[in-house]
């Protein structure tokens, strides 16, 4: 089974790319691939992952470990589950720091305290000695961000960083993340299923469906002129705004990776599917400057959406 197939993404300096997909679209697999952490028996069959000009797929494990954490920072959902429950959070951040520097434990701990302050943890000196179970979900997510930025990475990968948090806390965390990314001048790959997050925090978006990018565009262009029927279905579902017509929210389910339909992978759920869609797989085509769509019938789709 191929969880991800022929995905090309480019992250420019300072850019926040939203990787949008629903359950099973392959979005997390892409994150793990970039980090070289695809769990066995999974493996990367082909392609290249270049960071600052170096191909991460060809470097040795040792070297990859150096890059990971130094130049790549990872923020995952449900941070509490990913922190070591037996080690104070300040020590965990200090360890992340000292594994990439020659700093003394004392200096590293001070860096950890400073970083906790940067992520707006109140009373960071004391909090640094707290254990993960003493933190609320929002606090744990801040600690995760602190750990990801402590080495001033060039690229941050945030995999649904606010999943399961309340909306007021979600806004706090995403604002914080955006501020930190800004001050580092880093680029972010923001993996999410939430179009609200994409609209408010991303500069570009790539929509994943069944392991393929089906549409990618700058955010403003995407929301104004979505072209892929799947993107439009997602937009309608997200806002629940069915403006007069009861828009057919997306019917059915994404295909099984073991049993992909011939032709376009979206065709069984698509209102526009015609013979060619059922026979031939479409490729990504540039339909407007920097706006790519994988759909034979994007012109009709765009027209229908406008009407």
């Amino acid at each position: 089974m191929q969880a991800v197939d022929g995905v090309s993404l480019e992250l420019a300096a300072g850019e926040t790319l939203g990787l949008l997909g629903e359950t099973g679209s392959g979005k997390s697999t892409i994150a793990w691939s970039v980090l070289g952490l695809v769990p066995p028996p999974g493996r990367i069959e082909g392609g290249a992952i270049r960071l600052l000009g170096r191909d991460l797929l060809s470097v040795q494990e040792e070297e990859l470990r150096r890059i990971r954490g130094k130049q790549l920072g990872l923020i995952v959902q449900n941070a509490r589950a990913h922190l070591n429950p037996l080690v104070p959070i300040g020590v965990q951040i200090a360890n992340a720091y000292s594994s990439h520097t020659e700093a003394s434990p004392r200096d590293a701990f001070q860096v950890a305290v400073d970083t906790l302050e940067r992520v707006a943890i109140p009373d960071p000196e004391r909090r640094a000695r707290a254990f993960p179970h003493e933190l609320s979900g929002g606090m744990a997510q801040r600690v995760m961000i602190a750990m990801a930025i402590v080495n001033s990475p060039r690229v941050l990968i945030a995999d649904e960083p606010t999943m399961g948090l309340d909306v007021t806390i979600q806004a706090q965390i995403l604002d914080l993340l955006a501020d930190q990314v800004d001050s580092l001048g880093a680029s972010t790959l923001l993996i999410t299923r939430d179009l609200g997050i994409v609209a408010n925090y991303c500069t570009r978006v790539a929509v994943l469906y069944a392991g393929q990018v089906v549409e990618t565009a700058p955010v403003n262009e995407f929301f104004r002129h979505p072209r892929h029927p799947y993107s439009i279905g997602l937009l309608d579902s997200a806002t629940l705004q069915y403006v007069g017509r009861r828009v057919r929210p997306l019917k059915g389910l994404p295909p099984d990776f073991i049993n992909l339909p011939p032709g376009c992978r979206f065709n069984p759920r698509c209102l526009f599917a015609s013979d060619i869609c059922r026979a031939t797989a479409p490729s990504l085509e540039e339909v407007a400057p920097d706006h790519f769509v994988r759909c034979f019938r994007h012109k009709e789709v765009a027209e229908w959406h406008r009407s």
Partner: protein
Amino acid sequence: MASILSVERLVKRFPAPGAAKAFIWAVSDVSFDIEKGETLGLVGESGSGKTTVGRCLLRLVEPTSGRIVFLDQDIAKMNLRDFRSLRAKIQIVFQEPHESLDPRMTIAAAIGEPLKLVKHMTRLEQSDRIIEVARQVLIPKEDLTKYPHELSGGQLQRAGVARAMITNPELIVLDEPTSLLDSSVRAEIMELLIDLQQKTDVSYLFVSHDLTSVEHISHRVAVMYLGKIVETGTTKQVFEAPLHPYTRSLLSSVLVADPAKEHVRAPLVGEIPSPINRPTGCFLHTRCPIAIDACRTVTPELVDLGRGHRVSCIRVAPLPSQVFARNQLVAWTDNRGFARAEGTDGQRTELGTERH
């Protein structure tokens, strides 16, 4: 119109673990009504007590005090055997369909299980009813003989809805029924719930933190914070002209899926306080941007500001009938003693004067 349900001064406290005389105050003094065919949205973040309210209605947790009048009977104090005869009329759909669907039962058996609350039905009538309700929620016949692990999250939630609908209830508590689903599946379930209400005139208590869904499905809304209702009114009143600082902050945290709409933030500082050691006065004063000294000592009451729009905040006074678009509201300034909203176009609108 007649109320199906009338909740009066409901309180639920739990003993705090490890402390002899301390309590977790999950619900304090909550009152609301639901009419026939109406949906009340009960909104709040984790720890607001909204789920506990829903569970009290089914006696899944026992209320500490207060009245729950359902079909003219107080079910809060009723003994459980008598309540059982009413249970067919009040049902619940859980966030996790697995909570209500036994993994060893087929979908048909799980959907039909509540029929044991209904007397005098033959086997044949029961299976006819299962098929009928499955058709209503669009579960294909071949799925009825499957087991829960064979269905997707969306299909399971349909089964959860069918199970709740099968006894023809007057009221269904929908406890975050869509919050674990992808947005496309969520949209389908929302449409289904609205359709079923139109066909059967069932009432819903829709408990959720997902404001987009609440706005979509509810006729009226009640906003909870730390066990209390802080604002209630029609969906339009609460979503288009929110008055309580907590409601306004909550709504401003919703990320609208449209980059052309300017996102206006009215953040609350910090996190929700502990329900064991609740703040004095107004529970929000520790995080509120317009709190004054009096908020620390005075406990605000829900005050009707006109047409049933009720707000519990001493900083908000009755309003002239203004309606604001949600995104026009920016912030409050209190330097001259006024609660204010500032429009994105720079126009200032007075919201109300301070009351002493």
